């Protein structure tokens, strides 16, 4: 118990003595953790966006003029394994809703003389990841003038979001390596400054941990500060940023900022502690003579 107090005391003393290095380490570590948290939030929102959009995805089949046996076509569609529901929109119903959409410009449709729209089936699928197979099967039926679905758009957005997220994670990995090097150097510097204390500890028979743990604790405290700064920045800044983005692209549905924060703190804290532990453990292993304790 008493030696634990000594570890903490020495860890804080080390932080105070080594201010310049530690501030540099905090700055670099905070940047790295911020990058990670941003990537994490982008990833979470991309998943959420894809999920919410998935529920709205439908296949629109504009039928050929020759395809008149609507009930047989509907049965065939309903029998397809990935199909959840099939809705028939007749030519007249289609025209009616189209006129409604056009509003005051609807008169121009009357000028055409006849209904230009095709009869349509609207198909909802169970699994959007297999939508392409369903579309292919529909095309094979040779009943459609055109088959449209919004998957491409969602996929493009997902690919972009994943690319951003992936780039962020790569930057995070590079940042983590840089942080490990910074923590390593910071602890190395501290070990050099406290070589007399280490020597005394070794000579009086202090244990392996008593000599090394203050340095590891020091790095962990440093990383806790950095992750705390990032978490606070997200706590106060993330909701505002989401509001701004949402006002410029309202069709995007974002995750509730509180949900993001709840899911962020464990990976953020975990990454910070792992990086701090690895950097300081490597530094003590390399710089403290093992032969003596």
């Amino acid at each position, binding site marked *: 118990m008493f030696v634990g107090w*000594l570890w903490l005391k020495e860890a804080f003393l080390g932080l105070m003595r080594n201010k310049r290095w530690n501030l540099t380490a905090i700055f670099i570590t905070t940047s790295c953790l911020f990058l990670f948290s941003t990537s994490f939030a982008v990833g979470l929102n991309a998943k959420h966006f894809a999920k919410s959009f998935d529920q709205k995805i439908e296949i629109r089949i504009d039928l050929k003029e020759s395809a008149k046996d609507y009930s047989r076509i509907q049965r065939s569609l309903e029998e397809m394994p990935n199909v959840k529901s099939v809705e028939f929109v007749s030519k007249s119903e289609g025209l009616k809703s189209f006129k409604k959409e056009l509003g005051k410009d609807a008169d121009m449709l009357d000028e055409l003389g006849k209904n230009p729209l095709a009869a349509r089936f609207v198909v909802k699928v169970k699994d959007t990841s297999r939508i392409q197979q369903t579309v292919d099967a529909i095309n094979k039926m040779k009943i459609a003038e055109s088959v449209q679905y919004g998957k491409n758009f969602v996929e493009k957005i997902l690919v972009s979001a994943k690319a951003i997220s992936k780039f962020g994670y790569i930057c995070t990995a590079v940042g983590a390596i840089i942080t490990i090097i910074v923590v390593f150097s910071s602890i190395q510097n501290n070990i050099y400054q406290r070589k*007399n204390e280490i020597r005394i500890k070794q000579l*009086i028979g202090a244990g392996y941990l008593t000599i090394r743990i203050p340095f590891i604790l020091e790095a962990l405290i440093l990383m806790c500060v950095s992750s705390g700064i990032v978490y606070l920045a997200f706590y106060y800044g993330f909701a505002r940023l989401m509001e701004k983005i949402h006002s410029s692209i309202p069709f995007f549905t974002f995750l509730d900022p509180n949900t993001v924060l709840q899911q962020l703190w464990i990976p953020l804290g975990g990454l910070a502690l792992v990086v701090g532990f690895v950097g300081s453990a490597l530094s003590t292993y390399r710089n403290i003579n093992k032969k003596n304790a």
Partner: protein
Amino acid sequence: MIEFRSVQKIYKEDHHVAVKEASFKVEKGEFVFFVGPSGAGKSSLLKMIYKEEMPTNGQILVFGKDVKRFKTTKLRRNVGVVFQDFELLKNKTAYENVAYALECLGESPFKIKKKAMTALERMGIEEHAKRYPHQMSGGQQQRIVIARAIVNEPKILVCDEPTGNLDFESAETVMYYLNELNQSGSTILMSTHNMHIVNKMNKRIMIVEDGVVKTENEETKFNVTNFIEEIEHTSQT
């Protein structure tokens, strides 16, 4: 208490043979001087007792157990070490320097206070407990180092040139306290160049010359005296 059996020490880095042959015994409560010129192997001999260095060949027994089998931390809690350079923490007072050793061993604050003050009293520097090292003389600083080495009550005290940086008077004071410790039961092994001290203390002497340890006995007594005179003459010229 300590036994060297045909010990040899060769440093891997430069293949330097520091100790060619060392075979001797030190009994409990003895005070032994290791005398010899610089580079003779005195420090290497002492370092092997507290596992700062390991013997290349041979065997060293401490408390009847091979040092190789001793856990370094356990061995060092029973062997106090004092060097020529004081190695005191400049930002700590005399008391704090001594107490620090116990703090690192996880002692309770109550025990630390009691033991640290006792160690300072044994070295006659309790009145300087609140002073920082730079406020004290070399002799006083070395007594703090000894107090720190004995605060955990080790059974053996290894002193590597403890009076090397001290003036004559301070060296004599340090020797007085080391003698007191020896009188109270501590086994002391000390390397030194100071022939005046060796002569005055009248303790057992081992000559270390060119890596070979020669134990003093009745037959070699005359040679030892000659050797001491030789070293004294060399240091004067």
